[in-house]
């Protein structure tokens, strides 16, 4: 079977993508190598595709992330928006709970944990301001007013996080996940919250660092390190 120019054009990408085999491939090549119209066409499309595959990924402007946060989670009351918000959260971090560069998230997580949200058995309802109010102890009352807005922001982030996590779990099971990790639950000398011999805070801190890893992985732009 001899191939027409139209057929060559129609199958050009199949050929370039290596989808033609045997007789089809030879027929394609026979025509393309000798035809004065198809030979240059093949050459230019081939180099175009090569060029496109080599093109650099577009660099995301850093300000875009702040703009997105402003737009989705609502603008901060301050003029400088999220940058200022992160400053405030940093300011709220106590040295006791400061986890190095990730202190921003540690603070948020601790804040929410202390308000009665369980990361071990998370329920969206726990992030509802009224529920937090009811669960709150005396100390929490003091931060209630300031935290409600952060918490509802976090609620959106949480919702997205669960989607992402779910998505990732479905797609891939990484080796680290398969291996039994010496995670918070299994580490020696540690028990769960029911044990009176262990300080609650220890477990909470472990939960926090576990959660931090997750947050840091998915939201690296907010972790403080990348703020430019």
């Amino acid at each position, binding site marked *: 079977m001899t191939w027409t120019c139209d057929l060559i*054009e*129609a*199958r*050009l*990408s*199949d050929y370039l993508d290596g989808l033609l085999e045997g007789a089809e491939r030879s027929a394609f090549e026979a025509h393309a190598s000798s035809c004065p119209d198809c030979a240059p*066409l093949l050459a*230019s*499309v081939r*180099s*175009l*595709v*090569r*060029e*496109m*595959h080599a*093109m*650099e*990924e*577009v*660099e*995301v*402007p850093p*300000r*875009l*992330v702040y*703009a*997105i946060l402003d*737009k*989705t989670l609502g603008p901060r009351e301050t003029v400088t928006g999220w940058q200022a918000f992160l400053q405030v959260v940093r300011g709220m971090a106590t040295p006791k709970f400061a986890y190095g560069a990730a202190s921003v998230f540690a603070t948020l997580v601790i804040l929410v944990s202390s308000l009665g949200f369980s990361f071990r058995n998370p329920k969206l309802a726990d992030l509802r301001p009224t529920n937090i109010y009811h669960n709150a102890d005396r100390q929490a009352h003091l931060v209630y007013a300031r935290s409600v807005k952060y918490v509802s922001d976090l609620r*959106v982030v949480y*919702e*997205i996080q669960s*989607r*992402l996590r*779910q*998505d990732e779990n*479905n*797609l891939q099971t990484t080796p680290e996940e398969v291996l039994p990790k010496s995670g918070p639950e299994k580490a020696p000398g540690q028990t769960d919250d029911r044990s009176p011999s262990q300080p609650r805070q220890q477990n909470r801190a472990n939960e926090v660092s576990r959660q931090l890893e997750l947050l840091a992985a*998915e*939201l*690296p*732009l*907010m972790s403080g390190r990348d703020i430019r």
Partner: protein
Amino acid sequence: MRRHTRRIYGICYRFTGNRTEAEDLAQEVYLRVYRTLGSYRSAHGGFATWVTSVTRNLLIDHYRRSKRDRVTDSLDDKMAVVENKESAGRRPDEQALLGELSLQVQNALTKLSPELREAVILRDLQQLEYAEIQTVLEVPEGTVKSRINRGRIELARILQQMGVRPA
């Protein structure tokens, strides 16, 4: 989030060829994603695919909207002026960043029909699998393949008309 932002912004930029426009559109995509999060089902082929679909639908809406605006204005020659200004108004650092040839490819892309443009962007610039593109565009595999093929050929011809010959 960064991964998604990169893809969303990348698609928007490649489609519009304009950084400011791409930034605005990426923000709108996120807004739409957050608002319609409840309608997401894993059956749609994963979160990334779903986000890509949202991006694509928004770009098409945007394209139709701006096309309608153009028609209402019926100032075709004014459009040409705007287009020239846009390509002439690129910052020098952007030019250096993209490289001469990439810049020509980008310019040629925006001259492609949106239908072919999106197919080529998803396949050759975002390097998605055919199956994923199929889900995003909601057309059969044969259509996806033929759009990518026609898009590439068309793009090569536009570049030739522009006097560009990829080595």
